[in-house]
């Protein structure tokens, strides 16, 4: 007999069956890459949890020899990040290369001396996208994205930067679920336990920048999105009003990052409105 309790921040359980999830996600990677005639994949490996998990999944789905992990440090990137990325490369046996982006982005930083950290961070994220898409052509592999559901919903991502990819296997997993699945797949402990960081400048952590923890954000987003709670119902369930307000506003404000740009309708048949095909059309 299962009794369902009222959901509160304390008892929301995001646990997933990791065997089932692993099967669906490796199948997805294999299907979506091979059906378009590719056999290989390219992944930007930061040393963080999300890209580590994607690298493990891709190595399992495609064979490690068909996966290229690219490390793209900037001069201030933490040395731990490079080391942690190396642990993933060693554990999975994927191909790898290191392309430092410092010399690529510094000239643009120098051109605008008053540039703030946000602009610099966006430039670095987009520069990494350029390197990855170049390697996509060189390696003949598709770029696999590494954004999770929490950061996509919060808009904590650089449009056309780290969000740019051909497919994303973990975009429907909250951060806690990414962590749970990573443990099950054998991602090294040092990666699982360290605080999430975009590593765009020294000491940066996601949770400091966002002003709340992923643990809380996961649970609130689960109520708002998966369980279709209203903001008021989330507050009734026990989340603080200011936190609920901040998250609801982020989800709405950054929705543009989750959409293709709208096309102004002129004709009778317009891309995005009434020209409707899946990407897998014909495959």
């Amino acid at each position, binding site marked *: 007999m299962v009794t369902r309790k009222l959901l509160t921040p304390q008892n929301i359980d995001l646990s997933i*069956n990791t065997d*089932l*999830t692993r*099967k*669906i996600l490796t199948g*997805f990677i294999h299907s979506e890459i091979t059906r378009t005639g590719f056999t290989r994949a390219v992944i930007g490996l930061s040393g963080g949890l999300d890209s580590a998990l994607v690298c493990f999944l891709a190595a399992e789905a495609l064979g490690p020899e068909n996966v290229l992990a690219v490390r793209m440090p900037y001069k201030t990137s933490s040395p731990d990040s490079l080391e942690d990325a190396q642990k993933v490369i060693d554990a999975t046996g994927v191909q790898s290369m290191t392309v430092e982006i410092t010399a690529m982005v510094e000239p643009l930083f120098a051109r605008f001396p008053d540039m703030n950290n946000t602009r610099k961070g966006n430039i670095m994220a987009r520069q990494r996208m350029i390197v990855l898409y170049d390697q996509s052509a060189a390696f003949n592999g598709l770029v696999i994205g590494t954004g999770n559901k929490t950061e996509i919903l919060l808009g904590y991502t650089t449009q056309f930067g780290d969000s740019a990819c051909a497919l994303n296997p973990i975009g429907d997993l909250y951060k806690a679920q990414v962590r749970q699945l990573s443990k099950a797949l054998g991602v090294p402990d040092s990666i699982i336990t360290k605080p999430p960081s975009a590593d765009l400048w020294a000491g940066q952590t996601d949770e400091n920048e966002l002003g709340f923890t992923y643990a809380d954000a996961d649970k609130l987003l689960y109520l708002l999105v998966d369980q279709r709670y209203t903001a008021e119902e989330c507050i009734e369930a026990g989340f603080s009003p200011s936190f609920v307000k901040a998250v609801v506003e982020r989800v709405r404000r950054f929705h543009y990052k989750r959409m293709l740009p709208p096309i102004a309708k002129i004709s009778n048949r317009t891309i995005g409105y*009434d020209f409707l095909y899946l990407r897998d059309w014909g495959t």
Partner: protein
Amino acid sequence: MKLSIALAQINTVLGNVKRNLDKHLEYIEQAQAAGSDLLIFPELSLTGYVLQDLVPTVACRPNHDDPVFRPLLDASHKMDIMVGFVEEDVRNRFYIASAYLSKGETVHVHRKIYLPTYGMFDESRFFAWGDAVEAFDTRFGRAGMLICEDFWHASPPYLLWLDGADLFLFHSSSPGRGVSEAPILDSARWVNHILRAYSSLYTSFVIHTNRVGYEDGLNFWGGAAVYDPNGNLLCEGPFHEEALTLVEVDLNELHRARARLPLLRDERTALVQRELNRILNSGNRNSGR
């Protein structure tokens, strides 16, 4: 009487009918080699599922003049076959449809009645809805076909039961969703829950197959299953993998189950009709009309 059933849980190529037809013919050969009497393919097995604007380009008509159905009808001399396709009617309306083929003839066509148009689904944007639930006679007894959302509603199986169906032939293109700590998806759990319920409530055989593979981010979970008139699971295909699942069922189990549990004998259809008329004619706006 024994009936050898083969459940094909195939992947499909989205919008490429020729390649899907070739796969059907391969599975028919395999099922024939296994001595099957009846082979069931999933919903929209000839076309793929999220067709959107591809619908008019994949539609066909289940007769000998149709280049897709001609080889299937020819193959139906070897065994009875149930396929899923997009049907275009004489007035050029498009339906999600199932065809039952036997001895070179199209014995019955069912058009999907309930087109899910909510959440991730958008079927009634692209398809017309079917307007009939009819059982039909096969060489194995009377059967009825339903398509996915049709049997998520309780009434179509009930109508088939009253119309004489002892074999419920169900098929789906069911996107997998809902991962919890359980080893199967919420969607798979739910479907098998109701399949077992129908086989128990109607003391009938319930036979279901569902496709596998991916379309963009959607996964299809397979898990074909057959339940006997006592609600027992007789066989189950794997999840998320292509498979041809074979099972031999003893149709005499209908006799034994209904001797034990005469739910069909005792069903008060006149009462149902009377009460349904009263409810629907009452003008009560809260009725489920």
